[in-house]
């Protein structure tokens, strides 16, 4: 590693500093050590530049693959553009700093140049950064404005709730494509996100422990937190938004590479998209992960149709449904009983027919 080489070089120089200084005291106030320090700055400039360039090339093998969302590729482009500009500034200014330190080291009998100001020069280096900055700000602002714009009407709405220490997704279901209301006071061990069953839109909602996303369709994440701050981070899609208790947030984006495509693109057959928490939330913060699956639209629709509504897997909660909606809600419970008949022993006889009706409406 070049860094280590650099360290060794510095170390060996240091020993020479020590050696020379032993006898250098006779040279007066400013002796050999001044020269050594000046040379070390040049050495640092040269070895540091090599180390910086080499380490970057080496590290870039491990950066994230190309963004899997159009807005992500846009911000990545802006990132690398800005990076290029600041890298130039980084090398030029540091090089001048260390070179001047070396070049204008103390020499006996020499006098520094009395050069207190130069308005023209100062004007130039005020205006140039200002102009560059203005251009960067403008491009950045346009990207920000587009990314943060209102989600398109046809966006797939998925609610994602953070809690210590996992995520829960809720889908609008296939009947009304509308998420039902929620209320944090209704949360309990089964009803983890506080689904409000007095809203009929919630009857067909279902929850999942994975984030399933259709490719090439706008997806609107409605983000909530149950206890403390969390943050939804989808590194491959360049998506991040905090989850705030009491204040729902959102982020919309388009995932345009399916998990399968990514497996091929990265050559890693085990490739998975992941969701990470990026706002410190307690003991389990570092492992608050959810797997993300991106599939094409047909596969997504199929997956949705296979999910059972939350109400149907928790039929006890039928009691929470207001009287006038009972009949409508019962269909979901009955349908589940009819098609799956796994956990419900009290399945009514006519369940089969109703279940068929619901399945039909799903298509």
């Amino acid at each position, binding site marked *: 590693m070049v860094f280590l080489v650099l*360290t060794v070089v*510095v170390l060996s120089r*240091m020993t020479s*500093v020590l050696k020379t*200084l032993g006898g250098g005291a006779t040279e007066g106030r400013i002796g050999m*050590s*001044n020269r050594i*320090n*000046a040379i070390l700055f040049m050495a640092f400039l040269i070895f540091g530049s090599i180390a910086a360039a080499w380490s970057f090339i080496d590290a870039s093998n*491990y*950066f*994230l693959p190309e963004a899997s969302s159009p807005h*992500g590729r846009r911000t990545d482009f*802006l*990132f690398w553009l800005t990076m290029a500009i*600041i890298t130039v*500034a*980084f090398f030029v200014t540091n090089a001048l*700093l260390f070179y*001047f330190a070396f070049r*204008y*080291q*103390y020499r006996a009998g020499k006098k*520094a140049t*009395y050069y*207190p100001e130069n308005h023209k020069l100062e004007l130039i280096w*005020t205006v140039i*950064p*200002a102009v560059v900055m203005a251009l*960067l*700000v403008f491009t*950045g*602002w346009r*990207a*920000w*404005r587009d990314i*943060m714009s209102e989600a398109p009407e046809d966006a797939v709405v998925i609610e994602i709730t953070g809690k*210590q220490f996992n995520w829960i997704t809720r889908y609008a279901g296939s009947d009304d494509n509308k998420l039902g209301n929620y209320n944090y*006071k209704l*949360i309990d061990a089964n009803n983890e996100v506080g689904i409000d069953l007095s809203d009929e839109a919630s009857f067909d909602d279902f929850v999942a422990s994975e984030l399933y996303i259709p490719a090439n369709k706008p997806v609107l994440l409605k*983000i909530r937190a*149950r*206890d*403390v701050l969390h943050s939804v*981070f989808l*590194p491959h899609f*360049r998506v*991040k938004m905090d989850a705030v208790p*009491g*204040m729902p947030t959102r982020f919309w984006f388009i995932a345009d590479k399916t998990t399968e495509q990514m497996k091929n693109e990265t050559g890693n057959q*085990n490739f*998975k998209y*992941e969701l*990470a928490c*990026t*706002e*410190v*939330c*307690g003991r389990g*913060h570092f492992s608050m992960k959810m797997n993300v699956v991106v599939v094409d639209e047909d596969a997504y629709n199929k997956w949705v149709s296979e999910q059972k509504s939350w109400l149907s897997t928790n039929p006890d909660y039928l009691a929470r449904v207001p009287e006038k909606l009972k009949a409508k809600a019962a269909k979901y419970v009955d349908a589940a009983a009819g098609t799956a008949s796994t956990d419900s022993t009290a399945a009514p006889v006519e369940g089969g027919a109703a279940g068929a009706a619901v399945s039909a409406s799903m298509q």
Partner: protein
Amino acid sequence: MATIETNVASVAHVAEHDHHEPQSFWRKYIFSEDHKTIAKQYLISGILWAILGASLSVIFRLQLGFPDMKLEWLRPVLGGWITEAGKLDQEFYLALVTMHGTIMVFFVLTAGLSGTFSNFLIPLQIGARDMASGFLNMLSYWFFFLSSTFMFISMFLETGPAGGGWVVYPPLSALPQAIDGSKMGMTLWLISMALFIVSSLLGGINYITTVINLRTRGMSFSKLPLPIWAFFLTAVLGLISFPVLLSAALLLIFDRSFGTSFYLSEIYIAGEALPNVGGSPILYQHLFWFLGHPEVYIVILPALGITSEVIAVNSRKPIFGYRAMIASMMGIAFLAFIVWAHHMFVTGMNPFLGSIFMFLTLIIAVPSAVKAFNYITTLWRGNIVFTPAMLFSIGLVSFFISGGLTGIILGNSALDIQLHDTYFVVAHFHLVMGAASAFGLLAGVYHWFPKMFGRMMNERLGYIHFWFTFVGIYLIFFPMHYIGIAGFPRRYYSFTAYDAFKTFGDLNAFISIAAVMTFAAQWLFVWNFFYSIFKGRKAPQNPWRSNTLEWTAPINPGHGNWPGEIPAVYRWPYDYSKPNAPEDFIPQNVPFSQTPESNLPHENEMIAMEKEIEAQNYNDQFKQPH
């Protein structure tokens, strides 16, 4: 501390000032009202805190670099925080991160830096007997001491110190159910910070008053050395922003202890729905960062001020663009107040606000760039003497540039979406504010040690200390950018849970090794510092051949700093290598009438005003009837 003893006794006293009774040990060294003693108290407290704060970072770096390492050997120190399996407890990891941040930002780089150098240098460089109020100054230190005590005690609690990150965002910090650190540890954190704010305000009021009112004859604002400008603007920043943090802390105390709902709303935790509704965690973030962002400049401005002085003295050149330096500091200080929400781009804050704050944030890059260019130009055609202080100042400029440039990326809200709360941010702020300010602090110590203790520090050790630290810090924080670009989130105990973050194990180990090496090198400084207080070579009157007033005071200045008259000031502090002058420096107290050979045309006109300057004496406290 024997070296602090005054040698004023050997010098003839002015008639107006003759009450010089020897003070008791307590009044002289402990409850002292002398700005020099208080500065030393701040400095030594700051060094002790820095050792502790850095040790904590080494412990969590071990966890990050070597996740499989058995840390059983730390059990004698950490006790129950080492789990049965010989690993660091996960909540304790968060506590370490939190305490490292809190200690470094507030106790080391705010109190240790401003507290030391504002106290020490303001009276000596502006030509004052002492601070405007010695008593408030003493209170300021002892409030800080009390605050330190509370924070220190919190580290020994069974439930651990605060653990929600140094920003202590609620609801995590408000709910003891959420994390053990939010129990007693958080209470002590809040008490400690409240006391710290009181200390800061007492200090700040004093610095501002002293700079405005107690400048010596002829010391106009346009002749102030740049460190004083920096300390003055820093104090103004602190005075305006710290009270806002106090309000944030008070509301958090209310939420924690009195059932209010300022920051809490719709929370279900530990099997129950809390009754709080209507509060907003975002409110806390706004209040916190209204201090938190200026705080960054509270930390860096004094370091920049110190560097300006050290670079000019050791380049043997006037600082380039003295007025531009002041203007850029004023610009930074003003902008510091209107950029805070760039820490909150992805908190769910209105995106329109994000746009506004992006524009304002990136404006700050302009005055910062001006400062960097001015430092570099000051070196140009200089005659550079590499004292340890000079090395650290050049190091600071390098860090300030390298870390500052990535701020252009993070200040861009569109790019911040991906990088927010990743290691890219950690790398950025550690370079631009952490390492840069620490280098300012170290430069200041090396430069003014002779004035503080009347002795010199060992230069060779200083060089070695610099090169290890400078290279070490780049080895730690430069590669961290790569980890950030790869998306690694900060405050993670380990990265094993994710496929995406399984890479860079070697790089993390490398960073940890560099951190241990850098930490080890600091002991050279600690040894050098304490050894030289007692055994260092005796300092000459003006070891760096510097222009500012402190070097006209006795080598060990006593009570009142100058025996007899305070020197008057006739010229700016940067007359280095003036053409035709016999020496390469002309101190501020040398009148133009004595240097006809080197005067510039407009300076010859100033000779007429010398009589006027000399006639003034209203700022000498010793001349007031009392």
